[in-house]
Structure formats: C-alpha cells, structure tokens
C-alpha cells in the first residue's frame, strides 16, 4: 500500500473528530442562527474533563461520557443566563460576546489545570496497532472513526426520524410557528444547545489522547471548525462531514510530505477551494 494512501486513511480518524466538532457548531447555527465562537473553548473543556475523569475513575469511556455531559451542562447554563439575550442581536455581537466567553472559559481551565500541556493516556486496549498489510494502523484511530460514525448516524436518526428532530427542523423554518403549535420553543433551544455543545466536548475528549491537552487547543479547534464550515456550509450534516474529512486527510497527508507546513496546508487548501468555488463546496445562497 502506498504511504500517502495510508496517511490518508489515518487522517479519516482526525477528520471524523473535526466532523463531530463542526456538526455541533452547525446544529446550533441551523436552529438558532447563533454563531458560537466559544465552541473551541468547549472543545478544550471536553479534553480536560476527559483527562480528569479518566485519571480519577480509571475508565476512559466514563471520561468520554463526562466530556459530553459536563460541556453540555456548561452550554445550557451559558445559554440560559447569557446567550439567550443575544438571539435578536446581530451576528457580530454574538461573535464578540462568545469571544468574551472564550476568554473566561479558557482562563478558567488554566486556573484549574495550569498552563502546561498534559499527556492524556489512552486505555491499554486501544493503544495497540492493527496490521494492515505492511502498515500499522493505530487501533485508537479506528476507535475514533467508529465512535464518530455511530454518533453521526445517531444524529442523523435523531434529526430525520424522531419527533424532536422534526421540531428542531420546524424551528429552523419558523420558531414563531412552532411556538403557536404549543411547543415550548425555549426547551427545544436548550436541548439543541446542550447537544451541539456536548458534541464539541465529546470531540475534545476523543482528541485528547491523540494530541494531549493544552490551553491553546481551543483556539485551534474554533479555527478548524470555521474552516470546515466555510468549506462544507453550515446548517447541514453532509457539509461538516465532507469538510471535516477533507481537512483531516489533508493534514495527515501533508504531515508525511511537508511536516512543518502540515497546519499551513489546510488553510491553503481552503483558500484554493474558495478561489475556485467562492460559495464553498456545496454552494449556498
């Protein structure tokens, strides 16, 4: 097997993490029209939560569950106390307020866990490699891919096949009409917010063993999420999936070709795609 093909396969794992991260941003924007700049800081909190809970309980799965739950709770609290006031404001104000929130959350994490980068051990059972021909594939990447695929399918089912999903999509079209039909819109909003932010936390928890946990990963994550969303479009499922995989695979392949420029490459790919397709991959109004 070709080394580049191998790296591309490896990148699918990271790409799925990016998908999970961006789909949360996308779900929240789709329903609420709200741009959550603090999404990256929530990813950061997810990573530290997974690290902390795994270290305390010895169970990585519990750590992942906690990263989703803790961040979802933070998301709902922020929505109830602060962000709900901003729904009628212009997007610029929402972005600035969530930039402020990012400062608060990131500094809070540094206050508790310190500014140093920390290693997050992965469970022994996932630490090995599978041999794919002559190439070793880390089991953890396969695990990430599987978890994200299951979560993605679950989200698709939730939004396309359940009553809650129908309500969210209806709220997408007209929240006023939803209200008139006797549905508590604010509850739908809160649940959607919990889900979207929780996904950022889960993505952070999954990414932690790959790259460790450090306070700068929040800024990194929000930029990646924006790139994914710019490429794939916001408010859909397929957009973040395709965008996330493109970015993950690009990053992974470039780290074999030009390691110093691997992170530069994802932005060049984005700029290149925007140059040819100003409206992103799927176009939009």
């Amino acid at each position, binding site marked *: 097997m070709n080394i580049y093909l191998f790296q591309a396969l490896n990148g699918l794992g990271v790409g799925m993490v990016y998908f999970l991260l961006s789909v949360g941003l996308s779900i929240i*924007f789709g329903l609420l029209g709200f*741009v959550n700049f603090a999404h990256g800081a929530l990813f950061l909190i997810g990573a530290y939560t997974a690290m902390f809970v795994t270290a305390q309980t010895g169970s990585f799965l519990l750590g992942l569950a906690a990263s989703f739950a803790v961040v979802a709770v933070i998301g709902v609290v922020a929505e109830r106390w*602060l962000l709900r*006031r*901003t729904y009628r404001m212009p*997007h*610029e*104000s929402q*972005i*600035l*307020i969530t*930039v*402020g*929130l*990012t*400062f*608060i959350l*990131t*500094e*809070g994490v*540094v*206050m508790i866990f310190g500014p140093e980068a920390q290693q997050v051990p992965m469970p022994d059972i996932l630490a090995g490699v599978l041999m794919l021909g002559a190439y070793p594939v880390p089991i953890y990447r396969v695990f990430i891919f599987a978890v994200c695929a299951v979560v993605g399918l679950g989200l698709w089912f939730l939004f396309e096949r359940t009553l809650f999903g129908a309500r969210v999509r209806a709220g997408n079209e007209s929240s006023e009409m939803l209200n008139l039909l006797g549905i508590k819109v604010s509850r739908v909003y809160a649940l959607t917010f919990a889900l979207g932010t929780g996904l950022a936390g889960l993505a952070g928890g999954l990414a932690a063993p790959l790259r460790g946990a450090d306070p700068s990963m929040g*800024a990194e994550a*929000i*930029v990646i999420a*924006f*790139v994914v*969303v*710019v490429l794939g479009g*916001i408010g859909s499922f397929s957009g973040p999936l395709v965008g996330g995989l493109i970015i993950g695979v690009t990053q992974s392949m470039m780290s074999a070709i030009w390691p*110093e*420029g691997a*992170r*530069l490459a994802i*932005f*060049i790919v*984005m*700029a290149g795609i*925007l*140059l040819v397709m*100003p*409206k*992103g991959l799927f176009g939009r109004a």
Partner: protein
Amino acid sequence: MLEKINHSSGLFSLALVAFALAMPLVMGSTATAGVVLVFAIAAAACNLLLGYAGLLSFAQGSFFGVGSYAVGMVLKAAPGAGLAALLVCVAAGMIVALAIGMLSIRQRGIYFVMITLAMAQLAYFAALSFPQLTGGENGLLDIPRPITGLEGIMGEGTVQYALIAVVFVLAIAFLRLVVRSPFGRALDAVRENEVRAQTAGYDVQKLKLLAFCLSGGITALAGALYALQLRSAPLSNIDLMTSETILIMAILGGRRSLLGAAFGALAMTLMAEQLSHLWPRWQMIVGFVLIAVVLFAPNGLGGAWAHWRARRSVRAGDHA
C-alpha cells in the same frame, strides 16, 4: 463636548495632539505610551471596518504582523532606508489585505468573519513555516531603528516616541478624512443596507475591498511602529490574540469613534499593565468586560458617555 470635537477638524486634531502629549505622563514612560499610541492606530483602523464598513475582521493581527515583519526585513537589509521603510510596510499591509479581502468579501455576514479568521491563521502558520524569512518562533530580532535626523537633539526613547506620535496624529486624521469623504458616506450606505446601496448603483464589493485595504495598510503601519519600539518582530504580533486585542480595543472605545479607539487602546493597555501584576488570569476580566460592553454599551465607552449626557440633558430640560 465630544460632539464638538467630532464636528470641528481643528478641535479633533488638537485632541489628538493632546492625547499624544498626555500619554507619557499617564503611563509613566514613553515606551508604554508608545504602545498605547501604536494600538490606538490599529484600533482606529479596525473601526473603519467595524463601525463604518460594517465588517467584523479577525485578520487585523495579520496586517499588524505583516507590518512588523516588513519593517524588520527592510531595515535589516537596508539600514539606511529610514522612514521610507514605513511606506513599504503600508504597501505590504495593503497587498495582504487585498489578498484576504478578495477571498472573504465575496461572502457576507458570518462567512466573511470565519474566512478572515481562517486566513489570519494561514498568515500565522505561513510566518511559522518560513523561519528563514520571519525567524520562526523567535521572530525577527535586532531590528535597527531608522534615522530620523533628530538623534542629536533628543534621547533615543524620545525620538522613537515622537515618531510614533506624529504617525498617530497623521494616521487618525487621515482616517477621519476617509470616513467623512464621499467614500466614507458610501460605506455608511453599504453598512446600513447593502441591497439598497447596490441598487443605488454603488459597487458594494469594491467599496468594501477598498476599506479593507486602507485598514490593512494603516494596521501594518501600526505593526511596523510596534516592531521599531520593541526592536524586534515577535511571532505573537501576527497571531490570533493580536487580532482579538485590536478588536476589543475598538469595541471598548466605541466602534463609530476614531478618538474612542485611542481610549480603548489606553483602557486595554492599562488593564494589561495593572491587572497582570495582580492576577495572572486577568484576561478572564477582559472577557467579562467585553461581554458587558457588547450587551450594555454597544457604542463603547464614548457612546455610553454621550448617551448618559443626552439623558441627563433631557431630564434637565423636563425640570426647566
């Protein structure tokens, strides 16, 4: 008072000069006063986009950083270039702004914001990936200061501050001319209602792009002055944090006030100076301040003051 200053160009220039003269006394040294003026220029250029063109740009730090690197490269290659190096920086900033603007301005609203952020990150990683040009993580060190001809008359720190102060007054006066020109009025029209401006025959994209380039050039000038002040161009000049700092200063000062930008830069520098001594996590306070200003005083400190004055005079009128 604020309105009077805003309406009379003489009073406005006087206020700028007074601000530049007062800063060394307020901050206690010409070095920190220079930092305030540098960021005042950058914040005012940010206001041109935010308050007049209606564009929230996260790429301001890229322009700032490009200016820093450009002045370093020019003066290290040709120490005799003098103040012409600053013109090179303005040109470099405008070119980078043109490139980023051409990709981002085709899109509106949040997509514009997200693309400027991503392109800013591109600039950051480009600076990191080509250490032979930029010094990589260390930045460009030992940048010589240009010869201004005042060296014999004043001390070096004073000369440096005088240079920054003169550029500060000129740059902000220039921005005032821009926002009051027909071009500035057209930007107002675009911000208020883009479709209407387009229907009225304005080339909206071109207007925005021109504003973006002007802002980029002036921000790069600020970055260049900052590099001269530090005698180096650190990598942190081009990172996301610089963009956020400039944006926060612009918001604090009031997005529609060029003079306010100077006070926003002063407030933020004072916070950084004073609070960082007291508490290493002082940026948390910046977060709270930013949220409070956007929620309760969307026109910034200057706007809040004008609002309070207006309410007071209305109340006084009722009693009379």
